[in-house]
């Protein structure tokens, strides 16, 4: 017998799982389909930064709203998710970078973020673990981080409890708009609506519907050090966006910054590019000299989908009234809870609690 769900959600990362929570809370029947196990792609392997200062100015209000959600999550989900609301420094190593830092800070302030400015001297007194080579920094009390490793299993339990039917190891191979059928390697699923939350693969799903949705691929790398004495109380980001750093609860430091590894969606490789990685690590040790003697225990890479303007897609897929998408935010771990919630609201009620016009999935479609 053919079962029809209110919503078929394709992709069990941050975006998909939070969409499921909102949809289920508004009484919708939902099936969540994933090609592999849920929570194994970008949402599981990211660096866990919840920083506002490294977001595009246009995304600052959304990041602040997302952080409001993050702060409720531990209570809402009833478990630890490694959330540390630490505040964070964004650093500049040259006069050029300092200028850029100041310019972005102003644009972000126009969008509602408040930051304080520190010169070399002030930074030395306030955060002596940061190198004297750092010429200027801005500080935001909002910058935070959380543990992707902890959030995943906790979210899964919440989504299951909410009554969402999770189907794993079912790769979507086709989508039919006519009867809203999602074909998978484990059979067809029918919906009254379809939600594409397939991360970097969202363009592939859109293509099954004849839509050309531009998504570029980043293969971001992250490294983790051995545990070290606790010396880094805040998250650190960089004026040019090339470094993120935090010391997590066991004392290990996570080093990221969007340095590129090797791989494509077609070859499915996610290899570390050591020639690139070395720059990432050298930069980290330049900003925080105390890192230099630490061993790197592991480095890895993951896929992040990026739109041409680095803003997410959120809304109806162009030309389809019942097919929706939420995907590809730079800083999508930070924004995911909000993006998923807004998608859920939009599908369930036709409206959203925050404006989403900026994220129109049709903005690059030229007819």
């Amino acid at each position, binding site marked *: 017998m053919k079962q029809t769900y209110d919503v078929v959600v394709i992709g069990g990362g941050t975006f998909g799982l939070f969409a499921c929570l909102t949809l289920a809370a508004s009484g919708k029947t939902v099936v969540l389909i994933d090609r592999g196990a849920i929570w194994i792609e970008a949402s599981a392997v990211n660096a866990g930064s919840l920083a506002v200062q490294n977001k595009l100015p246009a995304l600052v209000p959304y990041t602040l709203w997302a952080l409001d959600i993050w702060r409720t999550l531990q209570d809402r989900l009833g478990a630890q998710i490694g959330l540390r609301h630490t505040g964070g420094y964004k650093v500049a190593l040259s006069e050029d970078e300092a200028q850029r830092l100041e310019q972005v800070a102003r644009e972000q302030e126009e969008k509602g973020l408040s930051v304080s400015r520190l010169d070399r001297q002030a930074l030395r007194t306030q955060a002596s673990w940061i190198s004297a080579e750092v010429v200027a920094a801005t500080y935001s009390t909002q910058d935070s981080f959380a543990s992707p490793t902890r959030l995943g299993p906790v979210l899964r339990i919440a989504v299951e409890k909410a009554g969402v039917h999770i189907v794993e190891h079912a790769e979507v191979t086709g989508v039919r708009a006519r009867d809203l059928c999602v074909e998978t390697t484990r059979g067809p699923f029918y919906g009254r609506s379809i939600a594409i939350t397939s991360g970097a693969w969202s363009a592939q799903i859109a293509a099954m519907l004849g839509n050309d949705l531009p998504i570029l691929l980043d293969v971001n790398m992250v490294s983790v050090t051995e545990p070290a004495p606790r010396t880094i109380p805040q998250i650190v980001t960089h004026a040019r966006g090339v470094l993120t750093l935090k010391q997590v609860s066991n004392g290990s430091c996570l080093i990221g910054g969007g340095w590129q590894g090797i791989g494509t969606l077609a070859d499915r490789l996610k290899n570390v590019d050591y020639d690139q990685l070395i720059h990432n690590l050298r930069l980290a040790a330049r900003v925080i000299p105390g890192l230099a003697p630490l*061993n790197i225990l592991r480095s890895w890479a993951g896929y992040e989908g990026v739109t041409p303007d680095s803003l997410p897609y959120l809304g109806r897929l162009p030309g389809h009234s019942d097919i929706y998408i939420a995907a590809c935010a730079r800083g999508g771990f930070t924004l995911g809870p909000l993006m998923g919630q807004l998608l859920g609201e939009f599908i369930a009620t036709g409206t959203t609690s925050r404006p989403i016009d900026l994220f129109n999935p049709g903005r690059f479609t030229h007819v």
Partner: protein
Amino acid sequence: MFSARLISGIEAGRPIQFTYQGQSIQGFEGESIASALMRAGIIGVRTTPRLQDRRGYYCGMGICWECSVEVNGQGVVRACSFPVSDGLVVQEPVAMTDERA
């Protein structure tokens, strides 16, 4: 009682003296710290921060980091893949406090 010894047919290198936790240990040139410690009957080389369990030689090939020890002038190394040398001072890595505990 655990015991390990050099298997027959292996020609040990020159004898070497080093210390682990202040205790004098004999190794041979070319031998790893983990190997020398095992022959001395020392299996657990460090203590885990949260559960206070003992850990030591496990994968034997530098992947798992279970046999981490601290070496003077070098910081943390893997005992399975770091050679002994005369006068080497080997210690348990500084235990971390774990806020989840």
